[in-house]
């Protein structure tokens, strides 16, 4: 049967005129806020409670983490540019900026990997003290979210490569953008409360 059947009066009807996928995703973001809030709250509760080291001031490298924070922040900008490109049907621009966002996200992950290894060699593991536990689990979950975001962006990139990411598909890119920016703002909170407040 042809899609002229879309003449059915209730096809695509919504009570608010808003996109259902986007609405659902904002709801999910609200939920995830609680997830990260609990992780952050635990970190704050355990600040200064470790019985033995290494302690944050022993291992933190603020200048380095500032750079990685900046990288992630810039990736959000790239995401905005990627969405704009998709919305106006600019295939080259879509490919470029989607890739750059994923690249910057991966660079951020690279910094995280470096940092984790450095901490590990300094004697900080999951089980060393409550700092190790709360730090690695908090930043670990955040990093996992970044990784999922990078994979998501790359699948969108592949779609764009196949010419299947036009303006009518912009909503999936917009939602991916919401996810990406959310991961970024969680990091804003983490960077301030975990690193800068030391």
């Amino acid at each position: 049967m042809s899609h002229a059947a879309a003449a059915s009066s209730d096809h695509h009807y919504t009570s608010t005129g808003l996109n259902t996928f986007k609405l659902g995703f904002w709801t999910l973001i609200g939920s995830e806020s609680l997830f990260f809030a609990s992780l952050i709250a635990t970190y704050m509760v355990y600040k200064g409670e470790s019985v033995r080291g290494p302690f944050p001031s022993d291992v933190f490298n603020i200048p380095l983490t500032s750079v990685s924070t900046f990288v992630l922040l810039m990736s959000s900008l790239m995401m905005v540019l990627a969405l704009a490109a998709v919305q106006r049907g600019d295939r080259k621009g879509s490919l470029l900026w989607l890739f750059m966002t994923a690249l910057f996200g991966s660079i951020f992950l690279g910094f995280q990997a470096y940092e984790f290894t450095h901490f590990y060699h300094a004697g900080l593991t999951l089980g060393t003290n409550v700092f190790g536990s709360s730090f690695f689990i908090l930043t670990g979950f955040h990093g996992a979210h970044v990784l999922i975001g990078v994979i998501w962006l790359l699948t969108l990139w592949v779609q764009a490569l196949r010419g299947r990411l036009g303006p009518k598909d912009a909503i999936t890119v917009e939602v991916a953008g919401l996810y990406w920016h959310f991961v970024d703002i969680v990091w804003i909170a983490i960077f301030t409360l975990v690193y800068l407040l030391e």
Partner: protein
Amino acid sequence: MVAVVLTIITAAEVAVAYVPALRPVLAYILITLSAAKFSLVVMYYMHLKFDSRIFSGVFLAPFSLALVVVVAMVLLFKLIPFI
């Protein structure tokens, strides 16, 4: 545009962390600056400022509870036992 502002705020945050004279109010300054960055990303990059208020509602209601959780936990473990 927004990116420039975000960069400036981040630089300011890092700088402030190194100024000894601001130690006592460091936490408040940093949290304020971060809240500013947070709001900018949410309002502009995530477009909440220009989108339907339903999206804002669906995000802000849980988010306000998230703030309650963080504040309550810090108070319950760090402040109230020592009053």
